[in-house]
């Protein structure tokens, strides 16, 4: 009798529960537009991002925040105008709830305002241009990567602590290139021999390398994201400069460039907020599953994109699937309440992460003949805040 009553009450509760949840689940579907570079040489960076989004969806059982999920990929072709067009299409035609992704700062500068002004969330998973961290911050804009200045700040601090001076600095001539050198100089106080900006997407650096040798600096600091990094590293080694002028870099030597330059990367120092060898359960699972699914090591572009989907998941869960509750989702995202691959982090008032930055070194791979791997050496900054939050009017 007792058990019968129990079974009945469970059945009734289940029935009510289902009918209550039923209509909401049927009409609610979360749509995420993910924009990255999927064609041309820079597709090398976009591919791990898309792969990681897919992996994140696999881990979530293809349900973000418990809702049916539709993901729409867009290709910005490494062009700001195309990126904006793709974002417009996602907003108007697909009526997405979130736009995420974006590798390049110049593309981000075109896309982010379009998305946030339309009242839609923009979740950046790579580019962190300074204007969007300062006066141009927005309550609907979050990033799971970093503010551009942060990583070179860490390298600047490391090189300052090492007592290095007479540095020759090089970067491509665009928003992120400028941010990188600004960040570097914020912590590096030694002498800078020259600052050289090259064309974005430049192929041949021989002219710049000749100038470099003529200036005879002590060390060189560069920012050349893949695919530019591949050209630069190959030509730097081939010109025989590696033995003469030690090279320090940010976003240049990673799991994308290493397979193309192999031993030429050995010994290279970089700073970064994440590495495949970072020890926490979420990251170990991500790295293992990524290698199983795609047969290679993931790269930070991917890790951030995985985090982007998880951040959205945490926000949608917090409002119980009510996608109209944007205030609730903003409040939830500000807590960064999910298992980030970098470990726990918090958000600055401008929605850029306050996080650790590590010194990484390209060391010989685990087996003879395998590619070098990036290994974390030590933390340079713990809970490092970007420097633009004070210009951002958002307070919370």
């Amino acid at each position, binding site marked *: 009798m007792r058990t019968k009553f129990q079974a009945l009450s469970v059945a009734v509760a289940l029935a009510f529960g289902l009918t209550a949840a039923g209509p909401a689940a049927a009409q609610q579907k979360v749509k995420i537009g993910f924009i990255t570079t999927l064609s041309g040489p820079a597709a090398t960076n976009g591919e791990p991002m898309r792969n990681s989004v897919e992996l994140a969806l696999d881990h979530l059982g293809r349900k973000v925040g418990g809702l049916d999920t539709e993901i729409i990929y867009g290709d910005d072709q490494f062009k700001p105008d195309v990126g904006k067009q793709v974002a417009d299409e996602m907003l108007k035609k697909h009526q997405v709830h979130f736009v995420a992704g974006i590798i390049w700062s110049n593309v981000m500068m075109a896309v982010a305002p379009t998305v946030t002004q339309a009242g839609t969330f923009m979740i950046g998973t790579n580019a962190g241009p300074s204007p969007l961290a300062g006066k141009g911050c927005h309550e609907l804009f979050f990033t799971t990567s970093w503010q551009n200045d942060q990583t070179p700040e860490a390298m600047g601090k490391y090189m300052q602590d090492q007592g290095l001076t007479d540095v020759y600095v090089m970067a491509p001539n665009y928003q992120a290139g400028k941010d990188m050198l600004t960040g570097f100089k914020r912590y590096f106080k030694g002498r800078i021999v020259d600052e050289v900006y090259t064309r974005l997407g430049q192929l041949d650096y021989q002219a710049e390398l000749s*100038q470099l040798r003529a200036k005879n600096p002590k060390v060189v600091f560069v920012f050349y994201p893949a695919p530019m990094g591949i050209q630069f590293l190959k030509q730097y080694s081939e010109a025989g400069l590696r033995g003469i002028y030690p090279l320090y870099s940010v976003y240049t030597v990673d799991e994308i460039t290493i397979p193309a330059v192999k031993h030429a990367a050995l010994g290279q120092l970089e700073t970064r907020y994440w590495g495949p060898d970072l020890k926490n359960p979420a990251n170990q699972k991500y790295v293992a599953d990524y290698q199983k699914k795609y047969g290679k090591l993931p790269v930070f572009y991917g890790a951030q994109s995985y985090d982007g989907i998880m951040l959205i998941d945490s926000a949608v869960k917090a409002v119980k699937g009510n996608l109209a509750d944007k205030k609730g989702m903003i409040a939830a995202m500000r807590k960064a309440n999910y298992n980030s691959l970098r470990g726990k982090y918090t958000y600055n008032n401008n929605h850029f992460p306050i996080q650790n930055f590590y010194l990484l070194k390209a060391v010989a791979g685990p087996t003879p003949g395998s590619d070098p791997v990036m290994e974390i050496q030590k933390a340079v900054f713990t809970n490092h805040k970007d420097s633009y939050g004070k210009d951002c009017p958002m307070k919370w």
Partner: protein
Amino acid sequence: MILVLEQILNGLQLGVMLFLMAAGLTLVFGIMNLVNLAHGSLYMVGAYLATWFYQATGSFALGVLLGLAGTLAVGVVVEVVALRTLYQRDHLDQVLATFGLILFFNELIAILWGRAAIFSTVPEYLTGHVELFAGLRYPLYRLVIILTGLAVAAGLWFVVTRTRLGMLIRAGASNRTMVAALGVNIRLLYTVVFGFGAALAGLAGLLSGPIYAVQPGMGELILIQVFVVIVIGGIGSIRGALAGALIVGMVDTLGRAFLKPMLSTVISPSAADTAGPAMASMLIYLLMAAVLTFRPEGLFPSRGS
């Protein structure tokens, strides 16, 4: 002074690389009246085949030879299968079709080798530097590129001006109908010219493999500059392609190297820091605009219609 000489060599090296690409492109346009956007794809195919054969055989020279032969074969197949039907169409159709070929080749390469750049390096015996004279050490491999490019230029000059094939090429460039009317197998001539052009693009690609990234879409990066070269040099003219390539190579390299220091003597250094790189990357396009204004047919236009 040494630095200026070194930069001139750098300009020359970029110039001959552009020339190898431009020669094929301009020949194909001049003789077959075909706008071939897929020329960059042949450059990519050359780089991939040579790198692949180099890794498989362990010999750079063998990789180069097989890569060249392979690109020539791919060029001939593309001509016979796809482009033959396009000669009578207008340029817009050709642009559309050859753009399709770009997408096709990029995807094909991505399927075969993956999207990530593949590893290639300068062979041991071509690494290192040569001391040209006191104080000027130049990378041996770049020197090899310069010499190869100049040798190809000389060879092309010989073929075009001194051989029967060259005569037909020149005749075809000035009046196609008449050449066909005289009983020359114009179809075969087209295939030969296209194959040659492809091999030259392949040569540029395989030479660039060890110093640039070998990856899908690598051809498009250089293709724009190559179009600037043939517009400046005069479409359809090999002489123009050589002159245009060397001018573009020099202007681009010297601009990148010296514009900023030169500007900083005239305007404030911080303004020069901003204006220098921006202007340096515009220089070749400004040059093209100037050439189009004053000599719309290019510096060395091909004779004929």
